């Protein structure tokens, strides 16, 4: 039924060819590599549509906002000026899993993209623990639809300006819209619409001390520590998810404004896993397409020309520039792919060194099983810590710099040798730790008995403060949503000292 001869010849493709390629690829992916994927949906689009998809972070639907217009302009320009080739594919973590193929691709590229996206990424989305925990692929498309509709309705009812004001402010706080430390709550994206309606009913029936408008008793009675604690508990403080807190407790927001904040928060949460899994995700997909295309060639399903084209485009993707070419970070495709290849090699054909470094997988003879396990159970940080081998470090010729601002120079304190492997590996892993990217900001207190000041803390080190200008703008946005004064203290964690304190008042809307 799947045939044996060449699937196609030349560059032209048609829907039959895509279907045949898909079948041949599926056979290899499932029978040989043991991949387990969401049902696939393949959509053919033009390059112009691809730009749209880019703009919306790969989402097929999104609400209207000027920031997308800006992103579109910058993508469009980069593309038109030839600075950026369009990605050959975009894939959406949804169920069914949607992969976009561009019509300009050659037949080989379409096959490659199917292997890469519809099987590589798809397997990763479905099996990686962090994706499983944080995202609900079966509901995301419905939710996007709801979000767009809801925001459009709000614009009709309350005006574009009012909606934009909330969206701008919420977008500024996006990075603080996730429960990073208190663990993920799997978002239930179902029934959002009914929930939106119920929210209003609930609010009518519930009571929030912040809403008190009656005059307080003339004597300001001293607040005991016990009372303070009780209040903090009631607000669930400390709270790292600023958007969540605002949605639930900001005293002056209307129900629709809370719902918009919730939409932004849920989107932020949906995208939260992606950056911390980028290395593995791309590594996995690239390895899968490389493996599958090689097998297709071995089985005589594609000809030499097609295979060379595959190699050519794979090589383009996995090029890692050195520091001299200005590279300041790792190309996730390059490092990811190199590590996957390396794991495969260690499982099948280990050296003495590998046996010392990776005793539990070296020579186990099950490369596919080992990779599948790694894809499921790790995130970039732990994956690097566990699997970055001396071989890969040598291949990339990695070295580590100590940048101490007290010194007038940068010190090379580890290179790819026995003494340096562990240091380098630790530092590379740490750079993939999400806590290295996100500012650790928490709401620590609400002065609910006084002037309703919202107090936040940024836990950091001296010398790693928030970027001043952005911080001020974001704090203003926060104050707007909260509706009262907001104070942000930056705390030097080692000493516990407050190094800086900022505040903002809400502007009249």
């Amino acid at each position, binding site marked *: 039924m799947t045939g044996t001869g060449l699937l196609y010849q030349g560059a032209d493709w048609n*829907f039959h060819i895509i279907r045949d390629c898909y079948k041949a690829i599926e056979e290899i992916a499932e029978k040989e590599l043991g991949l387990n994927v969401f*049902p696939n949906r393949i959509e053919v689009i033009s390059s112009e549509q691809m730009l749209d998809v880019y703009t919306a972070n790969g989402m097929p639907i999104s609400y209207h906002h000027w920031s997308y217009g800006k992103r579109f302009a910058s993508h469009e320009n980069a593309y038109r000026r030839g600075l950026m080739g369009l990605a050959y594919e975009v894939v959406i973590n949804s169920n069914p899993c949607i992969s976009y193929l561009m019509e300009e691709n050659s037949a080989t590229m379409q096959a490659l993209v199917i292997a890469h996206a519809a099987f590589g990424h798809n397997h990763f989305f479905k099996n990686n623990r962090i994706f499983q925990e944080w995202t609900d692929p079966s509901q995301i498309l419905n939710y996007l639809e709801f979000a767009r509709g809801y925001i459009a309705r709000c614009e009709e009812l309350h005006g574009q300006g009012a909606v934009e004001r909330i969206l701008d402010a919420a977008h500024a706080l996006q990075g603080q819209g996730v429960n990073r430390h208190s663990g993920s709550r799997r978002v239930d994206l179902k029934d959002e619409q009914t929930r939106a309606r119920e929210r209003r009913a609930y609010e009518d029936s519930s009571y929030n001390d912040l809403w008190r408008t009656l005059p307080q008793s003339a004597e300001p009675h001293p607040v005991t520590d016990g009372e303070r604690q009780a209040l903090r508990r009631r607000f669930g403080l400390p709270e790292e998810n600023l958007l969540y807190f605002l949605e639930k407790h900001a005293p002056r927001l209307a129900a629709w404004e809370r719902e918009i904040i919730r939409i932004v928060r849920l989107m932020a949460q949906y995208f939260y896993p992606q950056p911390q899994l980028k290395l593995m995700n791309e590594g996995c997909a690239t390895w899968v397409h490389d493996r599958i295309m090689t097998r297709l060639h071995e089985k005589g399903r594609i000809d030499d020309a097609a295979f060379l084209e595959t190699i050519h485009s794979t090589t383009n993707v996995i090029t890692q520039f050195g520091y001299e070419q200005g590279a300041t970070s790792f190309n996730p495709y390059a490092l990811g792919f190199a590590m996957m290849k390396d794991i495969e090699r260690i499982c099948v054909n280990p050296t003495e060194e590998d046996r010392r470094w990776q005793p539990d997988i070296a020579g186990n003879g099950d490369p596919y099983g080992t990779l599948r396990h790694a894809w499921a159970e790790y995130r970039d940080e732990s994956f690097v810590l566990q699997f970055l081998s001396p071989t890969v470090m040598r291949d990339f010729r990695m070295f580590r710099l100590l940048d101490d601002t007290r010194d007038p120079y940068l010190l090379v304190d580890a290179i790819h040798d026995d003494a340096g492997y562990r240091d380098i590996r630790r530092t590379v892993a740490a750079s993939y730790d999400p806590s290295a990217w996100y500012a650790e900001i928490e709401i620590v207190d609400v002065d609910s008995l006084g002037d309703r000041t919202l107090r936040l803390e940024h836990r950091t080190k001296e010398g790693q403060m928030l970027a001043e200008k952005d911080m001020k703008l974001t704090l203003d946005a926060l104050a707007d949503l909260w509706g009262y004064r907001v104070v942000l203290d930056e705390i030097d964690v080692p000493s516990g000292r407050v190094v800086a304190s900022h505040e903002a008042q809400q502007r009249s809307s």
Partner: protein
Amino acid sequence: MDIIDRRSNPHGKNLENRRRALGRARDAVQKAVRDAVANGKIREVGEGKAVAIPAEALHEPGFHRVFTQGARHIVLTGNHEFSRGDKLRRPPSGGGGAGGGAGQAGTEGGGEDAYRFLLSRDEFLDLFFDDLELPDLVKREIATTETTAPSRAGLSNDGSPSQLDLGRTMRYSMARRIGLGRPKPAELEEIEARIVALEDIRPLSAEALDELEILRERRSALRQRLTRIPWIDPVDLRYRRFAHMPKPSTRAVMFCLMDVSGSMTERMKDLAKQFFLLLHVFLEKRYKTLDVVFIRHAETAEEVDEDAFFHDPRTGGTVVSTALEEMISVQRARYPAQQWNIYVAQASDGDNSPSDTPRTVSLLEEGILPIVQYYAYIEVTGTGAIIRGETDLWQAYRGVAEKNPHLAIRQVSDRREIFPVFRELFARKPTGEGSHA
């Protein structure tokens, strides 16, 4: 697995977002447009173009940390010379962030300092002219109201009887009659006459009887056919159709007057040209019909085409009044003042033969200013212009300009000054009362 072909889905999903981004950065966009024009690429104005909006105007803030002091580690690739303990000079790229500051930018991604938007011609011009207004436009209120006039627009099958196009209708009728084979009345009459003749003969022979039978049959067939196929059928009717076409209610003519005598260098002509072009784009936007008349002059004046106007060099002295006379005669012949808005743009280096200046002034004051909407005189000066001070023509025009607000005079010595001058000349005036000293 499903394959869906989405290529035919609606495109341009981001048009609305784009519009909003432009709206948000309106001030920046306007400035960018102004800059684009001021930089002298006026010729491209007609094609729409890209404008760069500083990233500032579309900035999306957020909380993020920056490394300013302390110690940190950075892993880089591509080492082929360093050993442990080597000390490297800090890259010069500024401050404590130095080496790894770039590393962070890499993870952050969006390091753009400006966003480029490709504006269509209309968008561009709308922005360009947004804060400009033609002088005294208020006076001619019809400028904005569009009037329509009926104009012949083919034929239609129905209409009022007074619009019946008889010739056309008869032609269709005849075609139909021929096509359907309507018998001619003469043929019927002939047969009827024969029948009458035969009926009169008695006794009737057998052949005659047969003939009579045949003729009678034929007669009834013809009669039937005649009644069935009418002479004029409703399908033949054709009426003259009139459509209400918008009438170009505002027409403008722009006279470009330029001194092409030997003293005008190429550079000066180029400056003048920029002014003319800008004025042209501007008027084109405001008026449905815009004619341009190029008149060049040295000792004598003539009307020429655009190419000759700008590129054909002349030599000789300068007599400005000849150009004004030529302009008046062209205007009288082709552009009656009641029907046309008249704009005049004159560019010169300010030279004029002294004896001609009084005549120029009187022509201007009596013959031209009363009928034109606006008269802009720009004096392009060479590099040494500042020392030269006021030219004859300038002095003379200044006197007139003081009495006539719709004569504007400016001096320009660099292409960068063109646009500001243009803006100033046509700046929107709160009262609609045009005047600049």
